[in-house]
């Protein structure tokens, strides 16, 4: 998230860019042909920005943005041919068509991730292409309206198209900037870097992804609509073809994916290059222009794998390498967290209740008839050997998995089958066995993502995040990039992220694993502090030592079954627990386990 001053600088940059384009168009370029090329540059930049809004920020790559572009172009063309509709009306209407198409496409397709999403997106424009061919719209020529050219956007002066396209581009840039600077953009970035973590932090990933695709579709369709007006002819191949989809992502990837200016840079460099090559070489030896274009793309991308923008930025080194920050502060962990004695606080009514929870993966019964009741204010430990089903249990509670049978209630209300972000909103936070950081964001930004659940506005979210960092003793590292933190700092950051919306229940998944002895005490202190603040804690571990000291109630899982439950000291003497951990022969020999 940018600061306000940075955002303002970007607004000035957009204004400066617009003025430069106008100067170029009105004072420098003389021929109509160059004006037309410039119009194309601007329109492709809008399409690419639309693509970037979804794919650049959220990481969901679309290979099918031609669907929106084409629908926009056909909306305008069909509107003019059959309804005598002026582009002044049909182009804004195209935005609506694009948004609706985005919703229709997103609904099934967001079930997929990664490459599968990208490839599924290929299908939409191509399927539409065949449908339009079949409907007989092979080649729609926009009728000339000599009696009212202005009313139908048919300008004598090519520069007016430049102005219109520039207006669209400026609007697209401002929209992108606003997205970047809001929780919308932060949510998309969080989805890109770690979607399950975003979901568990209370981000409604589904909603933001759908919004991004709809907005992206609207922007792309608007650009496609104006493109149709400028070129006067619309054919299915030219607007739904794979080359359009490819162009959208080539320009953004080339210029710098996920950046405001990347798509613009890509369009400014590549579109004129392609155009020039075609004009200069195309007649000499057909095909040579494509070869040169291909070689140019490959050469530059080998030099700048993440795009020209990022490469140039690295050159001027405003963007330090990702792992620069961490070593700075090994600040005292719990300076502001007083170590507390173990107080068996008075326990309240049952906060979290599991009844007969069962889930199977194939033939494996990962959980089998689990009954559990966690009293409010308790510090509840779940242990068990590897593969006992501990993490699966958490995944069922927080909504990553739906149980095959059984019911979960939280504070008296059923939460079985809710999505993770809804579970988070009810007041259940969680951390992960393998820390799920948004590794390219700063520590503060990581925590802010968690704060969006409770915060009304972005400033409040920031305040809440700072407070949570202070609570776990990580304030000194708030500007460090998460990717460079130590294990202890990552665990604390994740704790802060789960803590920031003020949950009533925290699920901690092996928070103590992989920590050195010194680090352990710091984290234990924080956990006890949580309980002292009235937060109920359920913690998973597979080593007993730390747990015996920490918790006031123990439950032992083995092979998906609950084999013992009770006071820590009783449980560690339980025969079935010793058997699960050490094997049968130890049951007889060990009266009291080592620790």
């Amino acid at each position, binding site marked *: 998230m940018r600061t306000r001053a940075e955002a303002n600088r970007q607004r000035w940059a957009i204004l400066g860019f617009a003025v430069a384009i106008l100067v170029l168009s009105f004072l420098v370029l003389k021929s109509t042909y160059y004006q037309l090329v410039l119009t194309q540059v601007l329109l492709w930049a809008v399409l690419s920005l639309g693509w970037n809004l979804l794919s650049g920020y959220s990481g969901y790559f679309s290979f099918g943005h031609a669907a929106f572009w084409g629908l926009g172009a056909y909306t305008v063309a069909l509107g003019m041919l059959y309804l005598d509709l002026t582009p002044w009306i049909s182009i804004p209407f195209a935005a609506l068509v694009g948004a609706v198409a985005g919703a229709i496409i997103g609904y099934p397709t967001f079930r997929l991730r990664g490459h599968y999403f990208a490839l599924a997106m290929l299908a939409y424009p191509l399927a539409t292409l065949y449908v339009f*061919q079949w409907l007989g719209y092979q080649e729609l020529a926009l009728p000339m309206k000599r009696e009212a050219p202005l009313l139908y956007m048919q300008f004598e002066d090519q520069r007016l198209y430049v102005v219109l396209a520039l207006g669209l581009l400026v609007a697209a840039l401002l929209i992108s900037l606003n997205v970047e600077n809001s929780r919308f953009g932060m949510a998309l970035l969080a989805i890109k870097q770690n979607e399950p973590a975003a979901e568990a932090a209370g981000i409604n990933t589904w909603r933001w992804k759908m919004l991004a695709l709809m907005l992206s579709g609207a922007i792309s369709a608007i650009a496609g609509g104006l493109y149709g007006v400028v070129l006067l002819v619309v054919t299915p191949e030219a607007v739904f073809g794979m080359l359009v989809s490819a162009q959208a992502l080539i320009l953004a*990837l080339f210029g710098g994916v996920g950046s405001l200016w990347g798509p613009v840079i890509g369009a400014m460099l590549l579109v004129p290059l*392609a155009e020039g090559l075609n004009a200069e070489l195309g007649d000499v030896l057909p095909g040579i222009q494509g*070869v040169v274009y291909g070689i140019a793309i*490959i050469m530059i991308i080998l030099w700048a794998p993440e795009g020209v923008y990022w490469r140039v930025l690295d050159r001027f080194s405003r963007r330090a390498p990702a792992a620069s920050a961490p070593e700075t502060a090994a600040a005292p962990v719990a300076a502001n967290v007083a170590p507390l004695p173990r107080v068996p606080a008075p326990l309240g009514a049952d906060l979290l209740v599991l009844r007969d929870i069962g889930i199977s993966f194939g033939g494996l019964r990962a959980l089998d008839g689990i009954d559990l009741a966690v009293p409010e204010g308790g510090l509840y430990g779940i242990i068990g050997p590897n593969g006992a089903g501990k993490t699966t249990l958490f995944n069922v509670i927080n909504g990553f998995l739906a149980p095959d049978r059984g019911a979960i209630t939280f504070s008296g209300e059923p939460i079985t089958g809710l999505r993770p972000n809804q579970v988070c909103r009810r007041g259940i936070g969680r951390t992960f066995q393998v820390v799920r950081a948004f590794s390219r964001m700063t520590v503060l930004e990581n925590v802010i993502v968690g704060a969006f659940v409770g915060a009304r506005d972005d400033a409040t979210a920031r305040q809440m995040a700072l407070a949570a960092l202070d609570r776990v003793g990580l304030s000194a590292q708030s500007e460090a990039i998460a990717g460079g933190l130590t294990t202890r700092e990552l665990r604390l950051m994740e704790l802060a992220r789960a803590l920031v919306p003020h949950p009533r229940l925290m699920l901690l998944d092996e928070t103590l694993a992989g920590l050195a002895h010194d680090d352990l005490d710091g984290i234990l202190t924080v956990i006890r502090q949580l309980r002292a603040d009235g937060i109920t804690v359920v913690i998973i571990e597979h080593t007993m030592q730390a747990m015996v000291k920490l918790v006031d109630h123990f439950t032992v899982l083995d092979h998906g079954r609950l084999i013992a439950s009770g006071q820590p000291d009783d449980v560690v003497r339980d025969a079935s627990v010793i058997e699960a951990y050490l094997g049968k022969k130890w049951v007889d020999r060990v009266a009291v386990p080592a620790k």
Partner: protein
Amino acid sequence: MGIGERSGIPHLTPALSASRGGEGVARPVAKSVVSSPCFAYRRAGRSERKVAVPFSSVDLLQALSAGLLVGSAYALMCIGLGIIFGSMNVINFAQGDFLMLGMYAAFYLTAGYGVLTFLGPYGGPIVAAFLAGPIVFAIGWVLHRFIVARVTGAGVAQIAGAGAYGQILVTLGISLILQNGGLILFGSTPVGIRTPLSRQSWEIGDVLLNQARVVSFLFAVALAGGMYLFLSHTRLGKGLRAAADNPQAAIYMGIDVDRAHRIAWSAGVGITAIAGGLVATSQTFQPYIGFDFVIVMYAGVVLGGLGSNFGAFWGGLVIGVVQQMSTLILPYQLQNTAIFVVFLLIIFLRPQGMFGRLSERT
């Protein structure tokens, strides 16, 4: 004309260079970007029907068998793509263009330069198709060594998105170079490999089976089976699968991931090229033919589900059958739309594909 606008830059239509306004409307002569690779053949005499049923049972069998025969070639292509996609996790947009290279390699070995004419009109095209494999394998090897390896494999495992941005652009760039290089070298006139088999059919009951297709079906299935055995039973095959499953772990286990990738890439494009060589006996082609098949291939691979070459094979076969069967009830222009509809349905019902699995650790 009709070539420039397919050079990878969609707006390069003649409309651009034509002056606007005055002489009316310039007409871009865009050929179909993805024309349907259609091989629907029904017997001419069978189309007169009496009842309301839109098609007869013979039509059904005919379409089914045509689908299986076509599908076997698709299946082989999908295996080639699946090896690359599966082991490198790279989306190779140039796969269709390697298919095109395979077609032209087979063409020049037979009709073009006639190197293989001594094998006769029956054996020549088949041998040529299989020789296309090693030729394209070598081209793929060189391209991987000097270009693709720079954006894939061990070197970029640490970069965000594992270098996916660079990979996409590089394969798109290779695709542009191969298509347009092909245009320069081979020309734009469609060519084909003629074999007497193309025009002969076996008759089983009332169903006609094109002999060229039956032969290519048998070879495709045999080659697919061979690949399956190779991947599951040889040391090299297992190494490829390990490198695919977890490149980092594979590196630690002493597997040279870059080498494994190079083999996977080259073998993948080589197998697809053989499929191209087989298909070349029953249709004409030009340097832009690759586009037509990229979609079919990816639909097949996603349909089958990542992770098993087995899945890619069945995915390809299903695509072929759906494509041919759809012509029974849908207008023939919509046969590829039918593919996409089935594709989306399966995605909707089983996001992991027919044979894939979904797993995620938290």
